[in-house]
């Protein structure tokens, strides 16, 4: 299929970051002095003293407050909106509706299907239709209540089946056809042939419920359109750059006349990685009123803004040989996208593309369909699009292991794809510490003593996964770097790093500081980080797809190392030694051959270099190499480096109440190199906590129509009703950092922010099977579900059978018998099929 010019991914002769002699994995001096230490964060003290400035902490003179009016119907035409009473209300300064912001936008350029305020039609309960700016939030709310809207209610599509069965109830007019948002079918190798050669084929159907990010800070922005026609927008966002671009389009302002500043953000997890109504509305109202305008979402609005985990219905057929090697995997997936596209194109690809490691898959096929429904739009939530398939597959792997009588950790080892390898869908794997992850959780959890050995109700389960460290695919096609850093050195002995990077709590501001300190020998307190201000900082694409450490880290390393070179050269000249003999660490510059006599402070070294080379400054940037398979969608999921994770979960289940108590999760994660182990552990623990929460208790679900109300109301849009774990609910979490030292990451580092979430859910599901003999194939694993599965019968028998089988295998292995191999039964006369590329997708890698 011919790809239109606008869609072409960057060419082969792309920008290449510099190559450093000796590579970029090791320290600039003989050993690290900052990297790898348990450092504090640069903004930590501000956060613990209440001085960090979040968007709602910003108050500008003469600031107005605005609120959004939202649809009470899940699907309706807007016949009329009467705002006259609102406009006339004392204290009201501006009222806007859809016609004031008619331009469509959307994070993915091919699917721009949203308006800041709906003009003709509303597509979910909560869809915004009007905005009022007033002296106070109270007056704004009064004015909203006075706005008269006439709707023509349409039938509401409430789920995947309805979306497919009723294409005539068209939710989103920009859909491909009916209610199809996106369909991706790709096959690599010959799946049916491989399944045919299997000794066991297991079929499983899974339901992964939707969940939302629920950051503790709601969305908030302050817009200030000043007298010169410059718009400044402070917003709690992960993507200042993309927001900047869409603001220009929707508001009809030149990009040069807009400044987006990201203040400290109180959590995001993917829920703030695209533009939202409040940002456009606050900006427009500021342009109309000539005064700053703030919008703060209520907690209820945050649930409706959503952009969280897509509910997925997953159907897998997976095959294995008796010796434990995987054969073919076939996946059929339906994805509930809600009312708009958001990142849906990427979600649909990720639902298949990201499954192909850490295990070798001789043949793999996926057929994923995302549909539109009349519910809040789904988007990227930590582990975007790959958490659900990973859950299903790791449960399938557990079933396959049981079917051939192999330990689940063994079967994962057996199929390990290796480092420096290529997946069946042409993803390039470089560093890969997965076996070490398995070893670590096996040892730490005392797996061999516990698996299939504990009393009824107690069990352990294992799962593995992989994730991207950013990808090749930049959201809008262009050939410019994906991350940029500018570095300024000052005679006072201080460095300032300017970078568009978005710190959402994961610690990327600090990563920039650690790298500068390491390269230039500074103390942490002598580095300033200026981030995510589109007037001041070079473009970084933002905090999503776990790209920050890898991409801005590399850009920063290059910028810092360039200046280090100038400084080392100046000192070498002064001291009569070679630049390679210069060490910069802990505020001191010295010559390693003669440190007592040849040394000075780093501050003096900066001054020396400035007098030799002029004012000191440098630029660093990062662009991914050309990666991905030569087929449509081949770059989506193609990453310069992948992280790997393994979890073991231990559970204690109460058969009378159905309560699953997850006692502990051991989390082993290959992050390449932990630039700061405290931060990496924090990501591992936070990810495991979030996966646990989805497994046990989170549900973003909506009410069916009743006589009292229509369909589409959120079941419980509050932090009381939407269950997220408290300090008393959260299991014990143990982090085990594995370092495979990636060749292309900054000092060998890879991601840690999303990968460690994936295995939690299947590890818990597999542990429940070990404990009770029931397979939890649907989320969440709450008491009604567990009790229902127990009541269905056969649990105890399955449990005993599994135990007996493992005991037999263990004693068989102990007595020296070889593990079973070869075919069970014959398939008379059938020729052995060879794997071949399918016409549909699998081109050469």
């Amino acid at each position, binding site marked *: 299929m011919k790809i239109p010019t606008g869609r072409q991914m960057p060419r082969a002769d792309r920008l290449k970051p510099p190559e450093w002699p000796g590579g970029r994995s090791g320290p600039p001096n003989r050993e690290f002095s900052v990297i790898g230490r348990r450092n*504090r964060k640069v903004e930590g003290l501000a*956060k613990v*003293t209440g001085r960090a400035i979040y968007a709602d902490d910003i108050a500008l003179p003469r600031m107005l407050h605005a609120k959004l009016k939202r649809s009470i119907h899940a699907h309706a035409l807007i016949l009329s909106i009467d705002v006259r009473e609102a406009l006339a209300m004392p204290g009201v300064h501006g009222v806007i509706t859809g016609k004031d912001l008619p331009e469509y936008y959307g994070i993915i350029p091919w699917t721009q299907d949203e308006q800041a305020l709906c003009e003709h039609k509303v597509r979910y309960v909560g869809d915004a239709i009007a905005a009022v700016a007033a002296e106070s939030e109270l007056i704004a709310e009064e004015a909203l209540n006075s706005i008269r809207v006439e709707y023509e209610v349409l039938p509401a599509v409430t789920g995947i089946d309805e979306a497919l069965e009723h294409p005539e109830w068209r939710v989103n007019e920009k859909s491909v056809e009916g209610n199809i948002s996106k369909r991706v079918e790709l096959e690599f190798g010959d799946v049916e042939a491989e399944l045919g050669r299997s000794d066991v084929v297991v079929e499983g159907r899974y339901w992964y419920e939707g969940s939302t990010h629920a950051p503790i*800070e709601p969305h908030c922005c302050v817009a200030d359109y000043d007298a010169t026609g410059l718009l400044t927008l402070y917003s709690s966002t992960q993507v200042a750059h993309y927001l900047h671009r869409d603001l220009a389009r929707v508001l009809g302002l030149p990009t040069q006349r807009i400044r987006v500043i990201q203040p400290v953000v109180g959590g995001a997890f993917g829920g703030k990685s695209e533009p939202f109504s409040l940002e456009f509305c606050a900006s427009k109202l500021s342009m109309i009123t000539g005064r700053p305008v703030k919008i703060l979402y209520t*907690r209820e609005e945050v649930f409706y803004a959503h952009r969280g985990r897509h509910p997925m219905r997953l159907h897998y057929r997976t095959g294995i040989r008796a010796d434990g090697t995987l054969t073919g995997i076939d996946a059929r997936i339906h994805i509930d996208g809600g009312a708009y596209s958001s990142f849906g194109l990427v979600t649909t690809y990720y639902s298949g593309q990201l499954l192909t490691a850490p295990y070798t898959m001789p043949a793999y096929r996926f057929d994923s369909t995302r549909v539109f429904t009349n519910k809040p739009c789904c988007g990227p939530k930590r582990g975007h699009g790959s958490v659900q398939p990973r859950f299903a597959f790791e449960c399938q792997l557990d079933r396959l292991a049981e079917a051939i009588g192999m330990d689940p950790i063994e079967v994962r080892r057996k199929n390990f794809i290796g480092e420096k390898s290529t997946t069946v869908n042409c993803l390039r794997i470089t560093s890969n510490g997965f076996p070490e992850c398995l070893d670590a959780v096996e040892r730490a959890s005392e797996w061999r003593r516990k698996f299939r050995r504990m009393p009824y109700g107690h069990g352990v389960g294992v799962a593995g996964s992989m994730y991207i460290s950013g990808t090749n695919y930049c959201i809008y096609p262009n050939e410019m770097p994906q991350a940029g850093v500018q570095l300024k050195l000052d005679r006072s002995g201080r460095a300032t790093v300017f970078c568009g990077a978005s710190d959402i709590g994961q610690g990327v501001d600090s990563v920039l500081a650690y790298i500068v300190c390491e390269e230039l020998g500074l103390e942490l307190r002598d580095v300033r980080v200026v981030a995510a201000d589109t007037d001041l900082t070079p473009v970084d694409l933002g905090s999503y797809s776990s790209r920050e450490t890898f991409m801005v880290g590399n850009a920063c390393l290059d910028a810092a190392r360039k200046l280090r070179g100038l400084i080392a050269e100046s000192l070498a000249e002064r001291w009569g030694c070679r630049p390679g003999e210069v060490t910069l660490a802990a505020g001191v510059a010295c010559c390693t051959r003669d440190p007592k006599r040849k040394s000075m402070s780093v501050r003096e070294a900066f001054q020396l270099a400035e007098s030799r080379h002029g004012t000191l400054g440098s630029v660093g940037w990062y662009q991914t190499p050309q990666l991905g398979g030569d087929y449509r969608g081949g770059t989506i999921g193609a990453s310069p480096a992948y992280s790997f994770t393994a979890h073991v979960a231990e559970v204690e289940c109460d058969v009378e109440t159905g309560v699953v108590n997850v006692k502990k999760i051991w989390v082993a994660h290959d992050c390449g190199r932990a630039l700061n182990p405290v931060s990496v552990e*924090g990501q591992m*623990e936070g990810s495991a906590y979030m996966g646990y929460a989805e497994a046990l208790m989170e549900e973003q679900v909506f009410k069916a129509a009743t006589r009292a109300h229509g369909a589409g109301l959120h079941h419980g849009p509050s932090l009381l009703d939407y269950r997220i774990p408290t300090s008393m609910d959260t299991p014990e979490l143990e982090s085990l950092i594995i370092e495979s030292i990636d060749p292309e990451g900054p000092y060998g580092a890879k991601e840690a922010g999303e990968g460690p979430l994936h295995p939690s859910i299947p590890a818990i599901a597999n542990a429940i099977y070990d404990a009770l003999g029931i397979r939890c194939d649907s989320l969440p694993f709450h008491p009604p579900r567990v009790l229902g599965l127990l009541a269905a019968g056969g649990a105890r028998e399955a449990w005993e059978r599994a135990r007996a089988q493992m005991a037999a295998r263990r004693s068989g292995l102990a007595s020296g018998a070889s593990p079973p191999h070869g075919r069970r039964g014959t398939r008379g006369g059938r020729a052995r099929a060879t794997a071949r590329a399918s016409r549909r997708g699998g081109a050469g890698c």
Partner: protein
Amino acid sequence: METQETAVCRLSVNGERRECAITPYTTLLEALRYSLGLTGSKQGCDKGDCGACTVVMDGLPVLSCITLAFACEGREVITVEGLARDGRPHPIQDRLDESGGAQCGFCTPGILMSAWALLERNPRPSREEIARELSGNLCRCTGYTKIFEAVERAAADLAERR
């Protein structure tokens, strides 16, 4: 609509006498954040579910977003801005920073106030006691592990001081 008329509210916050002109339905959180310039306490839900607004009043943690400001006249209110002494952070603040217990930091002020109030009452809490006392403060980032470690270390610091 509720009245827009304001009256003077006299509060004692962090040991200082503070006054603001507010409506009778203004919450303590709103008074602190929007009238008194003390933006350390956060609004996460505005209905008492998340604990980000936690301050300490007469020694006990309270949810300031569902407490009326006028109901706090004559009481001693301590916010996160009041924990540091002579420009030096309280051990609970220092240990939370050092341990990595503040990622995005939004729940942090509320967590600090609950933890501080606990340590004032119970200088040697067990981990179970810490978990229970913090169960009204939702954190979405950390999984609580490093928060517990920080409180335990701070308790040891305070014990050493005595």
